[in-house]
């Protein structure tokens, strides 16, 4: 089912149709919120808040835009508002992510886990204006044009921000491997 059709159903009063959109985009919303707030519980609260806001503003959704781009923008704004309200949000302790058993050796798992945690930390330290476009590109699979439209900024700025974010991470990663 297409997202636009689901949105139309919701606007006609079929509230339950919105559940489909929540199921489809909850991981994207949570992954952005988690990289803003660190705390998985707060990220989950924010995820709920984002979908609640999206439902209430559904009549304002521009169907020429991808739903993932629109919800990504709401997530970005909601996270920034949450951090402004309570600055502790951005320094809360994080839980270790659970790594599934993939048949790798214990050393490999540990190295992979450390690398992943380190990368997550570096992404969290990025400025919101760099972090959200990067996540929308790599996790939501949006194009530069779609990100520019959703964030209401020129295409050149999106290209620059994603490039700078990558460059910063790449340089830090080079240092990390050098030290390791």
């Amino acid at each position, binding site marked *: 089912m297409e997202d636009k059709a689901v949105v139309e159903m919701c606007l006609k009063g079929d*509230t*339950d149709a*919105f*559940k489909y959109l*929540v*199921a489809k985009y*909850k*991981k994207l919303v*949570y*992954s952005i919120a*988690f990289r803003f707030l660190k705390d998985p519980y707060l990220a*989950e609260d924010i*995820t*709920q808040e984002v*979908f*609640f806001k999206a*439902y*209430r503003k559904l009549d304002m959704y521009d169907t020429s835009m991808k739903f993932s781009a629109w919800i990504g923008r709401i997530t970005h704004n909601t996270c920034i508002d949450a951090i402004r309200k309570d600055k502790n949000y951005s320094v809360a302790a994080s839980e270790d*992510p*659970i790594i599934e058993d993939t048949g790798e050796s214990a050393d490999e798992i540990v190295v*992979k886990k450390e*690398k*992943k945690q380190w*990368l*997550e930390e570096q*992404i969290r330290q990025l400025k919101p204006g760099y972090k959200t476009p990067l996540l929308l*590109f*790599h*996790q939501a699979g949006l194009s*530069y044009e779609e990100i520019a439209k959703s964030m209401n900024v020129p295409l050149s700025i999106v*290209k620059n921000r*994603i*490039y700078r974010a*990558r*460059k910063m*991470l*790449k340089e830090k*990663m*080079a240092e990390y491997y050098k030290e390791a």
Partner: protein
Amino acid sequence: MHVKEKDISLFLDNSVSPRKRKMIEEHFAVCPKCKEKLTRWQSFYSSLELLEYDFELDGLEDRVMRKIKSHQPNQPVYKGIYRIPVTAVLFVSFIVFVLNLIFEPVFNRLGDFCRNTMTLMLDEGLELINTAKWEAVDIIEMLKSLEMTGLAACIILIAGGVYFTANRKSVRKA
């Protein structure tokens, strides 16, 4: 001339024009330095794929839907609209009832007074009009009689005048 870092990044994103893409590919084939840069960028891209995405979020849909359903936007709006007028109407009705109980005898007296005054004024007015009417009739009758009297007087005068004029001529002839 070597490929810029930004162009390598855009190359990996498939965001360069076909012409530029061909040029970059040709350059990578002959430039080991740029090829090494490309390898580093590719390694970095594969690291980004390590980012956690498959989070366990069981039951989130249900929690969101519960929150949405418990905050249906129309319900509080309607409650707000109707709550104030109903209270106001009840309050005003009560005040009117109490005032009616207190002031009913006064209102009754006032009503009687108004009714009597109106009746009196109406009767007096009618009587006055009747009197005036009959007075007017009398005056008209009198004027009519005066008219007849005047006419008779005129005829007599004319006749008298004719008679005396004729007599005076006969006297002169004599």
